[in-house]
């Protein structure tokens, strides 16, 4: 190699080194502004709560400015992040998006792994271990941690405990007793139903359906991120049971019910005896119901209690400067501190994400006063995995389409689930 070439190469190397070190300037006290994108279409005043946390954080970290960006629901936040990054703009540093969005977000490089920052913490592993395992299950991919649990919930069944007691019923413990109780509690005047025994929304059905399939013996998703189990006898029996609640027992409105927003008002006004919904509605239910509310998992076919977690995690969006990344991570950790996790849980009804949050004095006082908050956590103990696979959008749409066809009686459950399995396998083919 000629000297000239060597010199040239050296210059390039030095220049590149200087450039790289210029990029990786250590985080100092220069002011840095980060934004956090947050979905507010939930049953709690989260905007107000989050603004308060941002104020507290800025008081503690005077060089960081936190701006909150509120969008409608989870899809709106995700679309905002996607369009901003695809368009080459500056996306918010942090975003609360569905825990199950992990694979698509990471594959498309919309998000940044948190592992380097967790490793740099004094007690990173202890910090992670403190999260409830069911919630942290959606954070690992490709040997990295990508998100921190924040606004988390679980599928639960709310029941009108006073009504059950007055009518001499115990809390349903299996499919048979659930159907029988729901049937007994349904009231009709002539042809008009004045009280439904149970309501089970199915406008966006996979989530509330999963505990049913689990209760029949098999979840629709396993450990692998490229396998689904739609055509198992468990899923098919679960559809049969769901349909029987209306067809045989007359205890539930018939067919698909896009009733997510209606069932909580129906329940608290006493017009529905039991509802299947998110634990995220707990505070709302408790504050509005003038009767004793019970919370439990979904009974299995032969007993047991089943549920799946849901809700959103904190993600760090890609394309940030080092200073922004550090500030974003600090804020994310700040938001998940035990006292704050407890406070958030008390004020919204979402389940506190960390073990130590349940040791918080405020939390203990709250649970003593409202045992239901503790019951939602017990439900989690038996929770399985939420449907989270590669190519989730497509797989979920396939499942919804066939599940709803089976609920509406357009297809036989077996035929519907076989078709769903076939199409889902095709949609996952590219990822195996």
């Amino acid at each position, binding site marked *: 190699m000629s000297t000239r070439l060597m010199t040239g190469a050296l210059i390039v190397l030095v220049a590149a080194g200087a450039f790289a070190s210029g990029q990786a300037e250590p985080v100092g006290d220069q002011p840095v502004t980060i934004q956090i994108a947050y979905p507010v279409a939930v049953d709690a005043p989260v905007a107000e709560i989050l603004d308060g946390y941002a104020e507290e954080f800025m008081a503690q970290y005077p060089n960081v400015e936190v701006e909150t960006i509120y969008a409608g629901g989870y899809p709106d936040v*995700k679309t905002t992040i996607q369009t901003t990054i695809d368009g080459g703009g500056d996306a918010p540093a942090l975003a609360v998006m569905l825990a199950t969005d992990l694979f*698509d977000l990471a*594959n498309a490089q919309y998000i940044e792994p948190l592992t380097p920052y967790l490793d740099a913490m004094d007690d990173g592993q202890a910090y992670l271990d403190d999260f409830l395992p069911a919630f942290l299950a959606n954070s690992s991919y490709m040997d990295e941690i990508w998100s921190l649990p924040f606004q988390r919930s679980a599928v639960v069944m709310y029941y009108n405990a006073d009504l059950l007691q007055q009518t001499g019923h115990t809390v349903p413990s299996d499919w048979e007793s659930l159907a029988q109780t729901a049937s007994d509690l349904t009231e009709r005047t002539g042809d008009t139903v004045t009280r439904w025994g149970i309501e089970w929304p*199915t406008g966006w059905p996979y989530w509330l359906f999963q505990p049913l399939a689990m209760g029949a013996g098999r979840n629709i998703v396993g450990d692998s991120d490229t396998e689904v189990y739609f055509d198992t006898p468990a899923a098919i029996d679960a559809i049969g049971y769901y349909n029987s609640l209306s067809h045989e027992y007359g205890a539930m409105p018939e067919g698909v019910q896009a009733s997510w927003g209606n069932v909580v008002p129906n329940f608290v006004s006493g017009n529905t005896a039991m509802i299947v919904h998110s634990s995220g509605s707990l505070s709302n239910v408790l504050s509005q119901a003038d009767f004793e509310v019970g919370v439990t998992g979904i009974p299995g076919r032969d007993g047991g209690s089943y549920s799946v977690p849901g809700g959103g995690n904190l993600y760090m969006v890609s394309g940030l400067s080092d200073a922004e990344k550090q500030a974003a991570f600090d804020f994310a950790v700040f938001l998940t501190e035990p006292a704050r996790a407890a406070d958030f849980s008390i004020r919204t009804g979402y389940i506190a994400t960390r073990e130590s949050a349940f040791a918080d004095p405020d939390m203990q006082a709250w649970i003593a006063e409202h045992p239901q908050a503790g019951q939602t956590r017990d439900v989690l103990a038996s929770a399985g995995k939420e449907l989270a696979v590669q*190519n989730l959008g497509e797989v979920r749409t396939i499942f919804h389409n066939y599940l709803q066809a089976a609920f509406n009686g357009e297809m036989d459950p077996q035929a519907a689930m076989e078709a769903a399995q076939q199409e889902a396998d095709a949609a996952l083919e590219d990822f195996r």
Partner: protein
Amino acid sequence: MTTRRGHPLLPYLLILPTLVFVLVFTVYPTIASVVGSLFQHRLNIPRYREPVFYGLGNYVDLFSSDDFRMILGNTLRYVVTVVPLWIVTALGLALWLSRPRFSRLRVAMFHPTMLPMVSAATVWMFFLTPDYGLFNEFLRLFGYTGPENWVSDPNRALWALVIVAFWKDAGFYMIFYLAGVQNLPRDVYEALKLEGAGPLVTFFRFTLPLLRRTTLFVTTIAVIGAFRIVDHVFILTQGGPSGRSTLLLYHLWQVRFDSLNVGQASAITVILVMMLLVFTVTNFLVSERRTGDA
């Protein structure tokens, strides 16, 4: 101001801002979509994160999918229903409310237009609630005893979207007809009165033909509007049940942002643009030819 050859420069300068706008925001994205639709470009699959040439593969995939054909069918049924409803109602309202003493009623008819679609759809979600929803109560006044679960019934969900879109935008299209009706030549109508022409003859032989230009304009923007509105799908049905109320634009969103399939989303965009282009050009040519005949 002219160039050396004597071409006037000023007119070109005057249309320049519009031209730049159209090039940047219409022509360029359209061309980019056509090019993009020829590639396998899926952000959530590492080997397709950078576009890979796929020929007409995206189109083949789309048209060989039963779901996509159903979505096209949904969209056409939706447009073919809601556009005539809008136009007939808008014209009827305009003729009725063109007299000055009805000016307050005009505001009443126009007000749904001012609501954001999201709010309108949310309000309608409660109207359409089974059992106690206002819409079913209203229908029961006329003896309706059929199914009440509009948004989740496979044969009704699409019509629920039509109802909401109709309610929301009929007043908007009325405004254009009002302008047209108020510009109708008075002398023609005085002459018709003297001749003793009946209302049917007046309407079909004079009013309607005189409003042809307005109708051309309104049908064009109404069809584009019908394809373009999508918010009520998000709020009311999410395209369900079983995709029965999925419209083309909603599907485009799903494919692009839910499935991260950029190539296929581009192909859907091209299909959407082609459909609108074919309609607009046909509509324009037919209308212009009739003007020539007259």
